[in-house]
């Protein structure tokens, strides 16, 4: 059973529908107990980083932290990925999970529009090991984004470098600057884009998450 965490931050219908389309047995829940007993956890989220405060308030943050420690596969989507970092300049008083180091930042104002909305390309990590989320996904595949804050990319494509995993950058995308469009490290994964709205590519990524099994 896959727990899709409902913390009242946007509409979950599309995420649930896409997970079911690739064969998942989905339970939408805000119960820390149900999340603690899930085989996999998906944390969606659109909107403001401050909305993740509710995760702390109803005990989900601790349930997720414990589940991750036990090796349960976790996928954060959009704000759900940003939450994996230590925090975001969108809500400096609200800490993230702190699984990955760093802070989410806002795209700088300038000639390009903010938010970043639409289909953009992902360049996926191949070194030191290929990103598991993108098995079978071509380089420069298009996925659908809608966000104003982003996870900075760290040392991407520099080859074997211990710092690479500082935030586990698994794919990068360029808009105004090059940012991390996906992260993964061990059983923890996150995507800035919306796989549930990214056509066949997105469904493939969700399937990769479902089929990945910790050894």
């Amino acid at each position: 059973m896959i727990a899709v965490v409902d913390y009242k931050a946007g509409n979950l219908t599309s995420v649930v529908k896409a997970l079911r389309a690739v064969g998942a047995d989905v339970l939408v829940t805000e119960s820390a107990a149900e999340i603690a007993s899930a085989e996999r956890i998906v944390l969606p989220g659109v909107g403001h980083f401050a909305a993740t405060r509710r995760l702390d308030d109803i005990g989900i943050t601790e349930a997720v932290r414990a589940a991750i420690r036990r090796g349960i596969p976790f996928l954060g989507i959009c704000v759900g990925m940003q939450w994996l970092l230590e925090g975001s300049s969108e809500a400096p008083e609200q800490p993230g999970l702190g699984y990955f180091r760093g802070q989410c930042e806002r795209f700088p104002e300038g000639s390009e529009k903010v938010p970043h909305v639409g289909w953009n390309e992902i360049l996926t990590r191949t070194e030191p090991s290929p990103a598991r989320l993108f098995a079978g996904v071509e380089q420069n595949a298009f996925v659908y984004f809608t966000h104003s804050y982003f996870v900075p990319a760290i040392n991407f494509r520099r080859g074997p470098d211990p710092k690479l995993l500082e935030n586990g950058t698994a794919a990068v995308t360029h808009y105004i600057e090059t940012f991390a469009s996906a992260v993964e490290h061990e059983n923890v994964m996150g995507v800035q884009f919306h796989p549930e709205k990214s056509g066949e590519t997105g469904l493939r990524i969700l399937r990769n998450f479902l089929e990945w099994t910790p050894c």
Partner: protein
Amino acid sequence: MLTRRIIACLDVNAGRVVKGVQFVDLVDAGDPAELAARHAAAGADEIVFLDISATHEGRGTLLDTVRRAAQRLFVPFTVGGGIRTADEAAAVFDAGADKISINSAALARPELIGEIGARFGAQAVIVAIDARRAAGNPAAEYAEVFVAGGRTPTGRRAVEWAREAEQRGAGEILLTSMDADGTRGGFDCPLTAAVSEAVQIPVIASGGAGNAQHFTQVFREGKADAALAASIFHFGIADVRVLKEELRRDGIPVRLPC
């Protein structure tokens, strides 16, 4: 590179498509769910349903239509037409829409933009603006907003209303030029550019498309982030893929293959 979006729009009346592409091998060419899936498969970056039902009964079938279409759609899906309250929007989201578009209701009560945004995120709220150039002052900056399907002038300038909509939390603007709509003579590029430069949020251009060149123009000169394609597929362009291939030859970044 961020691509320019081509959005396929279907006018839906009482659960049936009023105009749209008549794909030759469709079982039911009037079924919105089937047409939406076909447009997505042909490369549409998003799908829009515009509910034009005039009757209450006709509207009643909308949620069922949205639910059936959403079942097979894995690209962004917008529903507009007749949404007047945050609860009505909630029902459309529950049925599977990713975004809603509001027009007259937002002008009548602009707080509605923020109310829906607070519950579903700004990215889910599109404010649709129907605008016409003023006879006395035809400059794009003076184009006036109309409501009630283009029948009622509001006395407001499109550029200024777009700015207010953004401040109130709209995620995107869908701008229809009433002067260009139905002419097949090209989008109103100066109007689109005036609105696009006035806001930071994406602007979707609508009205006037007759050929692929018109799309190139509205992306280049009109500074549109996306363009709506509806009846164009009746007139010489087979589907979204063919349109995108032409745009790519013109140097416009588009999602291909899709």
